[in-house]
């Protein structure tokens, strides 16, 4: 699929499959083409080239069937402030053609899922940022979608709220069995939530795999061992086939291995055989940050800060009005 805006290629021939029931993370910096991809998949934008199918429906030729099976939570809030939480959900349920009894039962159910039942009759303008997000997630679920699209679900939220949203996302994936397609530029988010991650930059997909495999591509983990007598241990470890390298710094050894958590017992066994006592063990795993750095040649964090800044400016502009 490709989308060109005025000669600028926002999404460049991407090709991917998302499995039913999985949480699929779309990781990339701002302007990488994540939102454009979501807009094309949710029928809001026409691809310039290529095609996509959702539950077998073509996003270009069968937009209304596609709209029926998807739920979307946009990056920018899309709630009506002047209506209550319940009314926002009711509006949605009616647009999706739910009957009266069905509607009421389902609204209560999704409100409970995101812990907003007590706030149902409050106007949305009195909701906090996290509550709005939760309400939007609830709304996206009302019509029993097969696929839920979440565009930067925790952008601009504080750490606790972000954690809470993550738990809601995991819960709904499990309880409702809904496939989740989420975009994010937060490494921890992609890592924590996704069964598989695609790394996208400049409109191209650079890698698709499970977060663990992506991190393994970096060249494994570092096990840092503090011990009484590092030198013989280092020599012995260097002879093991599964050790990629050993560095000694004072009383500590940095041991480079794959699947570090599985190698810790072996390292300790080697130490015991030599009669070396182990004081401490630290496992440092590569993060998706390292993976991202490797694929794009730069860190994502600097750009993330810009995004938050932009969001804040926009909020200020709205507030002044």
């Amino acid at each position, binding site marked *: 699929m490709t989308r060109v805006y005025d000669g600028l290629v926002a999404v460049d021939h991407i090709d991917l499959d998302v499995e039913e029931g999985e949480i699929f993370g779309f990781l990339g910096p701002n302007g990488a083409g994540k939102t454009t991809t979501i807009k094309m998949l949710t029928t809001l*934008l026409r691809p310039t080239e290529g095609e996509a199918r959702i539950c077998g429906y073509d996003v270009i030729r069968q937009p209304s069937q596609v709209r029926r099976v998807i739920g979307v939570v946009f990056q920018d809030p*899309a*709630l*009506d402030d002047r209506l209550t939480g319940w009314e926002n959900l009711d*509006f949605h349920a009616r647009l*999706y053609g739910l009957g009266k009894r069905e509607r009421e039962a389902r609204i209560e159910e999704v409100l409970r899922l995101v812990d907003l039942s007590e706030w149902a009759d409050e106007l949305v303008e009195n909701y906090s940022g996290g509550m709005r997000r939760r309400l939007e997630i609830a709304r996206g679920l009302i019509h029993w979608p097969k696929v839920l699209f979440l565009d930067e679900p925790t952008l601009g939220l504080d750490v606790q709220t972000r954690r809470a949203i993550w738990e809601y996302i995991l819960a709904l994936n499990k309880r409702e069995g809904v496939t989740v397609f989420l975009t994010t530029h937060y490494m921890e988010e992609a890592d924590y939530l996704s069964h598989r991650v695609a790394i996208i930059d400049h409109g191209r997909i650079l890698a698709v795999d499970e977060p663990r495999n992506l991190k393994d591509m970096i060249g494994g983990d570092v096990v840092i061992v503090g011990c009484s007598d590092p030198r013989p241990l280092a020599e012995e470890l260097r002879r093991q086939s599964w050790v990629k390298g050993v560095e000694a710094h004072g009383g500590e050894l940095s041991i480079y291995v794959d699947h570090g958590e599985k190698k810790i017992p072996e390292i300790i066994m080697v130490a015991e055989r030599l009669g070396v006592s182990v004081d401490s063990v630290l496992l440092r795993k590569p993060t998706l940050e390292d993976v991202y750095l490797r694929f794009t040649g730069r860190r994502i964090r600097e750009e993330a800060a810009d995004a938050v800044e932009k969001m804040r400016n926009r909020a200020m502009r709205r507030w002044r009005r």
Partner: protein
Amino acid sequence: MNSAEIQAIYVMWLRHVKRFVRARSRLIANVIQPFFFLAFLGMGLRPINFPGLPSGLVYLDFLTPGMIAMSVIFSSMFAGLSVIWDRQFGFLKETLIAPVSRISIVIGKTLGGSTVALIQGIVILIAGMLLGARISIPGTIPALIFMLLIAFFAVGLGLSIAVTLKDPDAFSLIMNLLMMPLIFLSTAFFPLESVSDWLRTIMYLNPLTYLVDGLRGFLIGSSSIPLAVDLSVALGLCASTTVLGAYMFSRSEA
């Protein structure tokens, strides 16, 4: 049309009306201007006898239908402004990805905007009557239908303008630069017969002239143009802007 589409029309209407009821300041702001015109101009110019004013009628009688038309037009066009706000606040996307036809959404918006406009028109009508305007009571029934036609026309126009704009301020500017002169150059404030030939030509070219004149014909039993002509123009305008608004809206991307 199936029940889901009807449900969608209903919910779009409901939202518009609910928002209106909750935003009381907007109601007052929209009604206050025509009301002041009515009260101050109607009272202040009471002794003046305009040429073309039918005998037995005073300026207040003449002005009341004009101010009703003005408030209906302005209030209806604000339905367009609500589309721009929805786009700014992101809510538009919620309606654009719903599995209902865009036509239903436009119909719902049109009905919602028109309902609100009609309420405001009725407020001005009652205000005019309280100030002493002599209104034909049997005429109010066809007048309400005529007000609805005016509302459909103005909602359609407002939507057509709104989908091409991203900025609410630009919309307000257009309202002031386009609609105010059109209102003044219709027969809302003074009769066709009272102006010079060249101004009368402009007034005849102004579609609002026919809307105001038709409403006046029903409400005070006096119109400068035959009612059949007013009605035909109103129906034509109403049909064309509604279709245009629906077409423009259905093509818009979030």
